[in-house]
């Protein structure tokens, strides 16, 4: 992990349950807390980078709300998400993490033939499928992938022992460390 915000998110998502920093300013225990901070992020982003603000905000909203939609009542231990952002003149960075079930566990329930974390990430970003079937949903990460490409963003998505790198193209590979839940880093 590169900078301090990324390291904090990495620590937050990987430490033992009893050591999770729930007093962190980046911790959003509920969707309401996230939405309040998300609203502040959007205002700041429109002030600094108006041309990119709407798409970047929509991408962040989809990823963060996925965490709540798919883990409500099923968090592994600590509920909620880590949500941090920093904007400078030439760089946007947004970091999200959750200690939920992860993509593989979520999708295996509705597509049992998925065998590992890498396959699960591939399916999540390319197929219309939702862990909440029979609800008709499952378009969020496809929207994320297409708009990361169109806006020239870079997105790293870790879940389990897999890592997806998205920019002009998508590359999914094994990640040596196991990320229980999800860790997402967006840069532009």
């Amino acid at each position, binding site marked *: 992990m590169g900078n301090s915000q990324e390291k904090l998110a990495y620590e937050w998502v990987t430490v033992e349950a009893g050591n999770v920093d729930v007093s962190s300013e980046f911790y959003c225990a509920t969707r309401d807390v996230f*939405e309040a901070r*998300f609203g502040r992020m*959007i205002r700041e982003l*429109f002030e600094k980078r108006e041309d990119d603000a709407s798409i970047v905000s929509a991408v962040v*909203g989809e990823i963060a*709300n996925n965490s709540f939609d798919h883990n409500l009542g099923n968090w592994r231990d600590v509920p909620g998400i880590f949500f941090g952002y920093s904007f400078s003149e030439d760089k946007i960075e947004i970091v999200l993490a959750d200690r939920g079930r992860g993509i593989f566990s979520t999708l295996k329930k509705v597509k049992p033939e998925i065998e590992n974390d890498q396959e699960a990430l591939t399916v999540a970003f390319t197929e219309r499928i939702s862990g909440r079937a029979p609800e008709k949903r499952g378009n*969020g990460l496809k929207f994320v992938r297409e708009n990361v490409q169109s806006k020239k963003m870079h997105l790293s998505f870790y879940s389990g022992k897999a890592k997806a790198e998205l920019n002009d193209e998508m590359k999914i590979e094994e990640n040596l460390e196991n990320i229980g839940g999800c860790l997402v880093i967006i840069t532009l």
Partner: protein
Amino acid sequence: MRIELKKIGEVLVSRPAGREAFLVISAYNLKDLTEDEEIEIDFSGVKVIAPSWADEVITKIAERFKNVKLLNAENETVQATLKTLREYSGLKI
């Protein structure tokens, strides 16, 4: 019937928020309308919209009514969201 989304909010993300919006619109805007009624969905003033929210509102309105028009839909996220709904949610408008 015209539905001005800015009256719901300028940031429209998340399925729970979309579901709530659809219930309100159904009760106050769409009640007693026949499927032939013209429905105009006006996106003016919307800063951010995401497919999760829109799937709960736009897709459902389009499934119920035959004549749905989208107004002031030039915003970048509106266009990106509609594209996603057309590709992955079967939106026909």
